[in-house]
Protein backbone atom coordinates (compact mmCIF):
# COMPACT_ATOMS: atom_id res chain seq x y z
CA UNK A 1 0.00 0.00 0.00
CA UNK A 2 1.26 3.48 -0.78
CA UNK A 3 2.54 5.48 2.21
CA UNK A 4 1.26 8.78 0.88
CA UNK A 5 -2.47 9.37 0.46
CA UNK A 6 -3.36 12.45 -1.59
CA UNK A 7 -6.34 13.18 0.64
CA UNK A 8 -6.52 16.91 0.12
CA UNK A 9 -6.44 16.45 -3.65
CA UNK A 10 -9.43 14.12 -3.76
CA UNK A 11 -12.15 16.79 -3.76
CA UNK A 12 -10.32 18.98 -6.28
CA UNK A 13 -9.87 15.83 -8.37
CA UNK A 14 -13.60 15.17 -8.25
CA UNK A 15 -14.33 18.79 -9.15
CA UNK A 16 -11.79 18.98 -11.92
CA UNK A 17 -9.68 21.53 -10.07
CA UNK A 18 -6.26 19.88 -10.44
CA UNK A 19 -3.50 20.51 -12.93
CA UNK A 20 -2.83 17.77 -15.50
CA UNK A 21 0.22 16.60 -13.57
CA UNK A 22 -1.59 16.47 -10.22
CA UNK A 23 -4.51 14.73 -11.84
CA UNK A 24 -2.39 11.96 -13.30
CA UNK A 25 -0.63 11.48 -9.93
CA UNK A 26 -3.96 11.10 -8.15
CA UNK A 27 -5.24 8.73 -10.82
CA UNK A 28 -2.17 6.53 -10.48
CA UNK A 29 -2.64 6.48 -6.72
CA UNK A 30 -6.33 5.68 -6.90
CA UNK A 31 -5.64 2.68 -9.13
CA UNK A 32 -3.73 0.99 -6.33
CA UNK A 33 -5.37 2.43 -3.17
CA UNK A 34 -8.85 1.20 -2.36
CA UNK A 35 -8.82 3.25 0.82
CA UNK A 36 -8.52 6.51 -1.09
CA UNK A 37 -11.07 5.39 -3.68
CA UNK A 38 -13.53 4.79 -0.88
CA UNK A 39 -12.62 8.10 0.72
CA UNK A 40 -13.18 9.89 -2.56
CA UNK A 41 -16.60 8.28 -3.01
CA UNK A 42 -17.56 9.30 0.51
CA UNK A 43 -16.40 12.84 -0.10
CA UNK A 44 -18.38 12.99 -3.34
CA UNK A 45 -21.51 11.76 -1.59
CA UNK A 46 -21.05 14.31 1.17
CA UNK A 47 -20.59 17.14 -1.31
CA UNK A 48 -23.81 16.10 -3.07
CA UNK A 49 -25.63 16.02 0.23
CA UNK A 50 -24.43 19.48 1.17
CA UNK A 51 -25.31 20.86 -2.25
CA UNK A 52 -28.76 19.34 -1.93
CA UNK A 53 -29.19 20.85 1.55
CA UNK A 54 -28.04 24.26 0.39
CA UNK A 55 -30.48 24.17 -2.51
CA UNK A 56 -33.29 23.68 -0.04
CA UNK A 57 -32.59 26.91 1.82
CA UNK A 58 -35.85 28.83 1.82
CA UNK A 59 -35.57 32.14 0.03
CA UNK A 60 -36.72 35.24 1.88
CA UNK A 61 -39.31 37.67 0.57
CA UNK A 62 -37.10 39.49 -1.92
CA UNK A 63 -39.31 42.57 -2.06
CA UNK A 64 -39.00 42.96 1.69
CA UNK A 65 -35.30 42.18 1.45
CA UNK A 66 -34.78 45.00 -1.03
CA UNK A 67 -36.85 47.44 1.04
CA UNK A 68 -34.69 46.66 4.06
CA UNK A 69 -31.53 47.00 2.00
CA UNK A 70 -32.60 50.43 0.70
CA UNK A 71 -33.47 51.52 4.23
CA UNK A 72 -30.05 50.45 5.42
CA UNK A 73 -28.38 52.23 2.52
CA UNK A 74 -30.23 55.42 3.38
CA UNK A 75 -29.23 55.08 7.03
CA UNK A 76 -25.60 54.59 6.04
CA UNK A 77 -25.76 57.60 3.72
CA UNK A 78 -27.39 59.69 6.43
CA UNK A 79 -24.74 58.57 8.89
CA UNK A 80 -22.04 59.56 6.45
CA UNK A 81 -23.60 62.97 5.95
CA UNK A 82 -23.89 63.42 9.71
CA UNK A 83 -20.30 62.42 10.17
CA UNK A 84 -19.24 64.82 7.41
CA UNK A 85 -21.31 67.58 9.02
CA UNK A 86 -19.71 66.94 12.37
CA UNK A 87 -16.34 66.98 10.72
CA UNK A 88 -17.06 70.30 9.04
CA UNK A 89 -18.17 71.75 12.37
CA UNK A 90 -15.06 70.45 14.00
CA UNK A 91 -13.02 71.98 11.19
CA UNK A 92 -14.79 75.25 11.67
CA UNK A 93 -14.27 75.10 15.42
CA UNK A 94 -10.51 74.71 15.46
CA UNK A 95 -9.70 77.89 13.50
CA UNK A 96 -12.22 79.79 15.61
CA UNK A 97 -10.50 78.72 18.82
CA UNK A 98 -7.09 79.56 17.38
CA UNK A 99 -8.23 82.98 16.16
CA UNK A 100 -9.82 83.75 19.53
CA UNK A 101 -6.61 82.82 21.30
CA UNK A 102 -4.56 84.99 18.96
CA UNK A 103 -6.93 87.95 19.44
CA UNK A 104 -6.78 87.55 23.22
CA UNK A 105 -2.99 87.47 23.12
CA UNK A 106 -2.82 90.65 21.00
CA UNK A 107 -5.26 92.41 23.33
CA UNK A 108 -3.24 91.38 26.36
CA UNK A 109 -0.01 92.65 24.85
CA UNK A 110 -1.66 95.95 23.94
CA UNK A 111 -2.92 96.41 27.53
CA UNK A 112 0.49 95.61 28.98
CA UNK A 113 2.21 98.03 26.65
CA UNK A 114 -0.24 100.74 27.55
CA UNK A 115 -0.08 100.30 31.32
CA UNK A 116 3.35 98.84 31.68
CA UNK A 117 1.92 96.01 33.55
CA UNK A 118 4.00 92.96 33.77
CA UNK A 119 7.16 94.43 32.27
CA UNK A 120 10.21 92.94 33.89
CA UNK A 121 11.96 94.93 36.68
CA UNK A 122 15.02 96.80 35.41
CA UNK A 123 18.45 95.48 36.31
CA UNK A 124 20.90 97.27 38.61
CA UNK A 125 22.85 98.88 35.77
CA UNK A 126 19.67 100.20 34.22
CA UNK A 127 18.76 101.87 37.57
CA UNK A 128 22.13 103.54 37.91
CA UNK A 129 22.15 105.27 34.56
CA UNK A 130 19.02 107.47 34.97
CA UNK A 131 20.21 108.41 38.45
CA UNK A 132 23.52 109.65 37.05
CA UNK A 133 21.71 111.57 34.39
CA UNK A 134 19.46 113.32 36.97
CA UNK A 135 22.57 114.23 38.96
CA UNK A 136 23.98 115.94 35.91
CA UNK A 137 20.71 117.74 35.34
CA UNK A 138 20.74 119.47 38.72
CA UNK A 139 24.40 120.38 38.31
CA UNK A 140 25.54 118.54 41.41
CA UNK A 141 28.73 117.39 39.79
CA UNK A 142 29.59 120.90 38.75
CA UNK A 143 29.16 122.06 42.34
CA UNK A 144 30.57 118.98 43.92
CA UNK A 145 32.69 120.84 46.45
CA UNK A 146 29.52 122.53 47.89
CA UNK A 147 27.46 119.41 47.91
CA UNK A 148 30.22 117.48 49.58
CA UNK A 149 29.76 119.55 52.75
CA UNK A 150 26.01 119.38 52.91
CA UNK A 151 23.80 117.12 54.86
CA UNK A 152 21.60 116.19 51.94
CA UNK A 153 18.52 115.46 53.97
CA UNK A 154 18.62 118.68 55.94
CA UNK A 155 19.73 120.98 53.14
CA UNK A 156 17.47 119.84 50.31
CA UNK A 157 16.37 123.43 49.72
CA UNK A 158 19.95 124.48 49.14
CA UNK A 159 20.43 121.71 46.63
CA UNK A 160 17.20 122.57 44.88
CA UNK A 161 18.31 126.18 44.40
CA UNK A 162 21.97 125.42 43.88
CA UNK A 163 22.04 127.05 40.45
CA UNK A 164 20.84 130.28 41.95
CA UNK A 165 23.87 130.58 44.15
CA UNK A 166 26.46 133.04 42.95
CA UNK A 167 30.10 131.87 42.91
CA UNK A 168 30.81 134.22 45.76
CA UNK A 169 27.93 132.88 47.75
CA UNK A 170 29.23 129.38 47.17
CA UNK A 171 32.57 130.35 48.52
CA UNK A 172 30.89 132.04 51.51
CA UNK A 173 28.87 129.02 52.06
CA UNK A 174 31.99 126.93 51.91
CA UNK A 175 33.80 129.06 54.41
CA UNK A 176 30.83 129.38 56.77
CA UNK A 177 30.35 125.64 56.83
Amino acid at each position, binding site marked *: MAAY*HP*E*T*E*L*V*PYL*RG*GLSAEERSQVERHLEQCS*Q*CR*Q*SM*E*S*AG*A*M*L*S*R*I*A*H*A*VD*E*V*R*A*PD*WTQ*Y*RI*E*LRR*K*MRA*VEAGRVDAAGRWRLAGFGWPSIAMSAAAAAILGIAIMMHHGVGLPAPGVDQLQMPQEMSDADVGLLANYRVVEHLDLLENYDVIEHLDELAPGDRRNHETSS
Partner: protein
Amino acid sequence: MAAPRFRGGLTQVERSDEELCRGIAEHDADAFEIMVDRHQARAYRLAYSMLGNEADARDVSQDAFIRLCEAAGKFDGRSRFSTWFYRILVNLCIDHQRRNRWWRRLAPLTSPGEDPDDRGYDPPSEEPGPEGDAMLSQSIGKLRPALDKLSPQQRAAVLLQTQEGFTSREIAAVLKCSENTARVHVHRGIMQLRKLLQND
Protein backbone atom coordinates in the same frame (compact mmCIF):
# COMPACT_ATOMS: atom_id res chain seq x y z
CA MET B 1 -20.44 36.68 -25.84
CA ALA B 2 -22.80 38.58 -23.58
CA ALA B 3 -26.48 37.92 -24.25
CA PRO B 4 -28.60 40.91 -25.21
CA ARG B 5 -31.64 41.60 -23.10
CA PHE B 6 -34.66 43.84 -23.43
CA ARG B 7 -35.32 46.56 -20.95
CA GLY B 8 -37.64 49.52 -21.39
CA GLY B 9 -37.91 48.82 -25.09
CA LEU B 10 -34.14 49.11 -25.60
CA THR B 11 -31.78 46.27 -26.34
CA GLN B 12 -29.01 46.19 -23.80
CA VAL B 13 -25.95 44.02 -23.70
CA GLU B 14 -25.78 42.39 -20.31
CA ARG B 15 -23.06 44.01 -18.31
CA SER B 16 -20.46 41.85 -16.60
CA ASP B 17 -20.04 41.94 -12.83
CA GLU B 18 -16.79 43.80 -13.28
CA GLU B 19 -18.48 46.48 -15.42
CA LEU B 20 -21.30 46.80 -12.92
CA CYS B 21 -18.77 47.18 -10.13
CA ARG B 22 -17.10 50.04 -11.98
CA GLY B 23 -20.55 51.58 -12.45
CA ILE B 24 -21.26 51.27 -8.73
CA ALA B 25 -17.95 52.99 -8.00
CA GLU B 26 -19.23 55.87 -10.14
CA HIS B 27 -22.52 55.98 -8.19
CA ASP B 28 -24.59 54.34 -10.94
CA ALA B 29 -27.73 53.32 -9.03
CA ASP B 30 -28.93 51.06 -11.87
CA ALA B 31 -25.67 49.13 -11.77
CA PHE B 32 -26.15 48.54 -8.06
CA GLU B 33 -29.73 47.33 -8.56
CA ILE B 34 -28.65 44.90 -11.29
CA MET B 35 -25.79 43.64 -9.15
CA VAL B 36 -28.10 43.00 -6.18
CA ASP B 37 -30.62 41.28 -8.47
CA ARG B 38 -27.91 39.04 -9.78
CA HIS B 39 -26.25 38.06 -6.51
CA GLN B 40 -28.81 38.38 -3.73
CA ALA B 41 -30.01 34.76 -3.84
CA ARG B 42 -26.51 33.28 -3.81
CA ALA B 43 -25.30 35.72 -1.18
CA TYR B 44 -28.25 35.01 1.06
CA ARG B 45 -27.93 31.27 0.60
CA LEU B 46 -24.24 31.26 1.45
CA ALA B 47 -24.83 33.50 4.48
CA TYR B 48 -27.63 31.21 5.61
CA SER B 49 -25.43 28.14 5.17
CA MET B 50 -22.70 29.84 7.18
CA LEU B 51 -24.88 31.25 9.93
CA GLY B 52 -27.89 28.90 10.00
CA ASN B 53 -30.30 31.70 10.77
CA GLU B 54 -32.65 33.55 8.41
CA ALA B 55 -32.50 36.93 10.15
CA ASP B 56 -28.71 36.86 10.41
CA ALA B 57 -28.38 35.69 6.81
CA ARG B 58 -30.57 38.57 5.65
CA ASP B 59 -28.68 41.14 7.72
CA VAL B 60 -25.21 39.97 6.81
CA SER B 61 -25.90 39.54 3.09
CA GLN B 62 -27.44 43.03 2.99
CA ASP B 63 -24.40 44.38 4.81
CA ALA B 64 -22.23 42.72 2.17
CA PHE B 65 -24.03 44.69 -0.56
CA ILE B 66 -23.58 47.90 1.41
CA ARG B 67 -19.86 47.15 1.75
CA LEU B 68 -19.75 46.37 -1.94
CA CYS B 69 -21.23 49.78 -2.64
CA GLU B 70 -18.69 51.49 -0.38
CA ALA B 71 -15.67 49.57 -1.62
CA ALA B 72 -16.50 49.20 -5.33
CA GLY B 73 -13.81 51.72 -6.21
CA LYS B 74 -11.18 49.48 -4.61
CA PHE B 75 -11.96 46.51 -6.83
CA ASP B 76 -8.97 46.42 -9.14
CA GLY B 77 -10.22 43.68 -11.45
CA ARG B 78 -7.21 41.44 -10.86
CA SER B 79 -9.43 38.72 -9.43
CA ARG B 80 -12.92 37.64 -10.41
CA PHE B 81 -15.62 39.87 -9.00
CA SER B 82 -17.30 36.89 -7.30
CA THR B 83 -14.07 36.04 -5.45
CA TRP B 84 -13.79 39.61 -4.23
CA PHE B 85 -17.45 39.89 -3.26
CA TYR B 86 -17.53 36.52 -1.48
CA ARG B 87 -14.46 37.53 0.48
CA ILE B 88 -16.47 40.47 1.82
CA LEU B 89 -19.44 38.23 2.56
CA VAL B 90 -17.48 35.42 4.21
CA ASN B 91 -15.52 37.90 6.33
CA LEU B 92 -18.78 39.46 7.49
CA CYS B 93 -20.17 36.01 8.35
CA ILE B 94 -17.03 35.10 10.32
CA ASP B 95 -17.07 38.46 12.12
CA HIS B 96 -20.74 37.98 12.92
CA GLN B 97 -20.01 34.57 14.41
CA ARG B 98 -17.10 35.95 16.44
CA ARG B 99 -19.31 38.67 17.86
CA ASN B 100 -21.88 36.08 18.87
CA ARG B 101 -19.35 33.63 20.26
CA TRP B 102 -20.30 34.43 23.84
CA TRP B 103 -23.73 33.04 23.10
CA ARG B 104 -22.30 29.87 21.61
CA ARG B 105 -20.16 29.41 24.73
CA LEU B 106 -23.31 29.10 26.80
CA ALA B 107 -24.26 26.04 24.75
CA PRO B 108 -20.93 24.75 23.41
CA LEU B 109 -21.13 22.68 20.27
CA THR B 110 -17.60 21.32 20.61
CA SER B 111 -15.66 20.22 23.66
CA PRO B 112 -13.19 22.75 25.10
CA GLY B 113 -9.92 22.64 23.17
CA GLU B 114 -11.48 20.64 20.38
CA ASP B 115 -10.83 23.03 17.57
CA PRO B 116 -11.46 21.12 14.36
CA ASP B 117 -8.62 23.04 12.70
CA ASP B 118 -6.07 21.93 15.30
CA ARG B 119 -6.35 18.25 14.57
CA GLY B 120 -3.44 16.46 13.01
CA TYR B 121 -3.34 13.95 10.22
CA ASP B 122 -6.53 11.96 9.89
CA PRO B 123 -6.04 8.87 7.72
CA PRO B 124 -8.87 7.62 5.57
CA SER B 125 -11.16 5.23 7.38
CA GLU B 126 -10.70 1.52 6.71
CA GLU B 127 -14.37 0.89 7.33
CA PRO B 128 -16.93 1.50 4.65
CA GLY B 129 -18.79 4.73 5.38
CA PRO B 130 -22.54 5.00 5.67
CA GLU B 131 -22.60 7.56 2.87
CA GLY B 132 -24.06 6.89 -0.49
CA ASP B 133 -27.24 7.53 -2.33
CA ALA B 134 -29.20 6.80 0.84
CA MET B 135 -27.63 9.88 2.42
CA LEU B 136 -29.49 12.17 0.07
CA SER B 137 -32.77 10.92 1.39
CA GLN B 138 -31.83 11.67 4.98
CA SER B 139 -33.21 14.68 6.73
CA ILE B 140 -31.54 17.90 5.59
CA GLY B 141 -32.13 19.24 9.06
CA LYS B 142 -29.46 16.93 10.43
CA LEU B 143 -26.78 18.56 8.34
CA ARG B 144 -27.23 21.95 9.97
CA PRO B 145 -25.90 21.03 13.43
CA ALA B 146 -23.00 19.20 11.83
CA LEU B 147 -22.13 22.23 9.70
CA ASP B 148 -22.27 24.37 12.82
CA LYS B 149 -19.55 22.24 14.39
CA LEU B 150 -17.04 23.03 11.67
CA SER B 151 -14.64 25.91 12.09
CA PRO B 152 -15.75 29.02 10.16
CA GLN B 153 -12.92 28.51 7.65
CA GLN B 154 -13.82 24.86 7.09
CA ARG B 155 -17.49 25.69 6.70
CA ALA B 156 -16.76 28.52 4.28
CA ALA B 157 -14.37 26.34 2.27
CA VAL B 158 -16.83 23.43 2.02
CA LEU B 159 -19.74 25.71 1.12
CA LEU B 160 -17.79 27.68 -1.47
CA GLN B 161 -16.73 24.39 -2.99
CA THR B 162 -20.19 22.87 -3.08
CA GLN B 163 -22.44 25.86 -3.50
CA GLU B 164 -20.36 28.15 -5.66
CA GLY B 165 -18.18 25.54 -7.34
CA PHE B 166 -15.10 27.56 -6.44
CA THR B 167 -11.70 26.05 -7.17
CA SER B 168 -9.12 25.65 -4.40
CA ARG B 169 -7.38 28.76 -5.68
CA GLU B 170 -10.55 30.82 -5.49
CA ILE B 171 -11.34 29.51 -2.01
CA ALA B 172 -7.78 30.46 -1.04
CA ALA B 173 -8.38 33.97 -2.41
CA VAL B 174 -11.59 34.33 -0.42
CA LEU B 175 -10.07 33.00 2.81
CA LYS B 176 -6.73 34.72 2.21
CA CYS B 177 -4.71 31.57 2.67
CA SER B 178 -2.59 29.32 0.50
CA GLU B 179 -4.15 26.96 -1.98
CA ASN B 180 -2.90 23.99 0.05
CA THR B 181 -4.50 25.36 3.21
CA ALA B 182 -7.76 25.82 1.31
CA ARG B 183 -7.63 22.16 0.24
CA VAL B 184 -6.94 21.12 3.82
CA HIS B 185 -9.95 23.12 5.02
CA VAL B 186 -12.20 21.39 2.49
CA HIS B 187 -10.81 17.94 3.28
CA ARG B 188 -11.02 18.30 7.05
CA GLY B 189 -14.47 19.83 6.81
CA ILE B 190 -15.78 16.91 4.83
CA MET B 191 -14.06 14.36 7.09
CA GLN B 192 -15.58 16.05 10.11
CA LEU B 193 -19.06 16.01 8.55
CA ARG B 194 -18.66 12.33 7.73
CA LYS B 195 -17.81 11.54 11.33
CA LEU B 196 -20.61 13.61 12.73
CA LEU B 197 -23.20 12.12 10.41
CA GLN B 198 -21.92 8.55 10.61
CA ASN B 199 -24.66 7.40 12.91
CA ASP B 200 -27.51 9.16 11.13
